[in-house]
């Protein structure tokens, strides 16, 4: 019988600690959160729990009936707690990989690789934070909100969704001390046109030092426009199809505008968090 959780050990030189590990975790629970999302909670070894908000894991998803997801699936971290040995992912069932995740039951062994990539930064002069995210992008910002509370930062979280009941993590953001504004498609409050004056008013009131965003290219463009006009920096967590997740295969590149040049960066290695001003 295998004792879980375990880290796959391979020879390492003395003194070298691997920056990420392939580990077998045990499923604690895997439950629906609302109509569209599920929360996967894992018992994880301490070696993989020195995470930063914005980092991700590569999940080796079990095969659902009739399908075989072959490559690992990148998934941003929803929650981590080294003292409690817990690691959480919030996901929406959309393809073979996440259909496989949905089959996991309490007690199952589950192989993950991570933590991977560069997380969000939070310089000292970013005291008033505005988090703007949509859909499952809200999950990516959840650990960031917790870090902001620990650092004593003020937060406004704009949570965008198709319908108000699908806006995720509202209670969680509030528990981290954020002022939460839910916007959605049903009343039109989630459009860039509706959001622009709302965000602009807060900028002009001196309530925004930095933006964080995830999950919507329309929101990205809005924040780029407002950021450029009002000289406000920020960071975005981005996605791309991946194979290795470590930087070896060069599959997950995206284009970025740096000065007057367009360059390519690997989302898994240089990202997934990038400056909002450089994202395309």
């Amino acid at each position, binding site marked *: 019988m295998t004792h879980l959780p375990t880290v*796959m050990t391979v020879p390492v*030189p003395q003194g070298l600690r*691997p920056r990420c590990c392939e580990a077998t975790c045990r499923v604690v629970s895997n439950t629906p959160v609302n109509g569209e999302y599920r929360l996967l909670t894992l018992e994880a070894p301490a070696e993989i729990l020195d995470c930063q908000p914005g980092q991700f894991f590569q999940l080796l998803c079990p095969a659902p009936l009739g399908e*075989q997801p*072959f490559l690992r699936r990148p998934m941003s971290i929803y929650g981590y707690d080294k003292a409690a040995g817990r690691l959480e992912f919030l996901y929406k069932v959309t393809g073979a990989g996440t259909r496989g995740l949905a089959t996991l039951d309490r007690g199952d062994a589950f192989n993950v690789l991570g933590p991977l990539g560069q997380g969000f930064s939070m310089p000292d002069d970013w005291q008033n934070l505005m988090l703007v995210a949509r859909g499952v992008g809200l999950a990516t910002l959840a650990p960031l909100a917790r870090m902001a509370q620990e650092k004593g930062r003020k937060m406004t979280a704009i949570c965008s969704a198709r319908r108000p009941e699908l806006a995720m993590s509202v209670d969680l953001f509030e528990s981290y001390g954020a002022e939460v504004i839910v916007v959605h498609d049903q009343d039109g409050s989630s459009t860039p046109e509706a959001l622009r004056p709302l965000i602009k008013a807060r900028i002009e009131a001196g309530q925004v030092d930095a933006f964080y965003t995830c999950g919507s290219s329309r929101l990205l463009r809005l924040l780029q426009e407002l950021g450029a006009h009002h000289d406000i920096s920020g960071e975005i967590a981005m996605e*791309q*199809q991946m194979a290795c997740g470590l930087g070896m295969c060069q*599959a997950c590149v995206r284009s970025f505008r740096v000065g007057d040049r367009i360059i390519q960066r690997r989302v898994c290695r240089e990202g997934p968090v990038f400056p909002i001003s450089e994202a395309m």
Partner: protein
Amino acid sequence: MKDMQNADLRVRVGALTLDNPIMPASGTFSEDLADVFDLDVLGAHVLKTIMHGTRAGNPTPRVCDLQSGMLNAIGIPSKGIDYFRDEMLPYWAGFKAPLVVSISAHSYDEFAHLCAEVSLDGVAAIEANISCPNIEANGNAFAMRPDTTHEVVTRLRAKTDLPLWAKLTPNTGEPAEVARAAEAAGADALVVANTVLGMSVDIANRRPRLGNVMGGMSGPAIKPIALRMTYQCANAVDIPVIGCGGISTRDDVLEFLIAGAAAVQIGTATFQSPTAMARLITELESWMQEQGVASLDEIIGSIEAPNAGVFE
């Protein structure tokens, strides 16, 4: 249990002696893997293919997954020869595992020129990726045909004194003839093989699932093809053959060695499990100790005739 003798995992690939037969396949390995394990446990280091100039690579999506495998069309993004010489070579010089540099080009002249340029101190062998399109042959890979294989390997041989490995393509219909042409032109070893040309379509939007439309298939699904071709080539030539294609378990490694491979390359398995190569080495060693196999010489090319007509 038998006496746990020390198993000797060393293998010879021409003039090179490797500490063990496990090495990465080009394109699936970089310094980034040093985040996961000590890269000096590997038999050799094989770098991603370098081309002379800088190249951006293919449009995304560059990968998609399949049942028991994947397709890729990365497109050899390359930072060019200067970056290799000034930045990469000093980094890899810090390891004891021999460094194998993969090179490619779209014409004979460009290929030969690059071969001379990478023949530097610190490089243990050159792997010629002759599985990429040759613009002088209507875009067909050099290794599709014996004559173009012979020509390109001859031109490379003239430019380097380093061990020269030719990486063949499984897309040819004449693997033994191509292998013999590479040997006759002076290759020191063959790498058999590369990815199998394939395609996948998303029926929801009727688009190809790769930005480049077609791509190279790899992973366990192609293992029987690569094993068959390794066996054919090992029988066709006297130079060592390095097996490559879908190898992901200890028993896969043993199959290739038994079929005649002197060593193996591991690629897609590393994407599923980045510790795969390190584990294969320890699993191979344990197997040899359990089986009382002192040296891999006892295994390599030890394939028997089929037991025809007998059910066991």
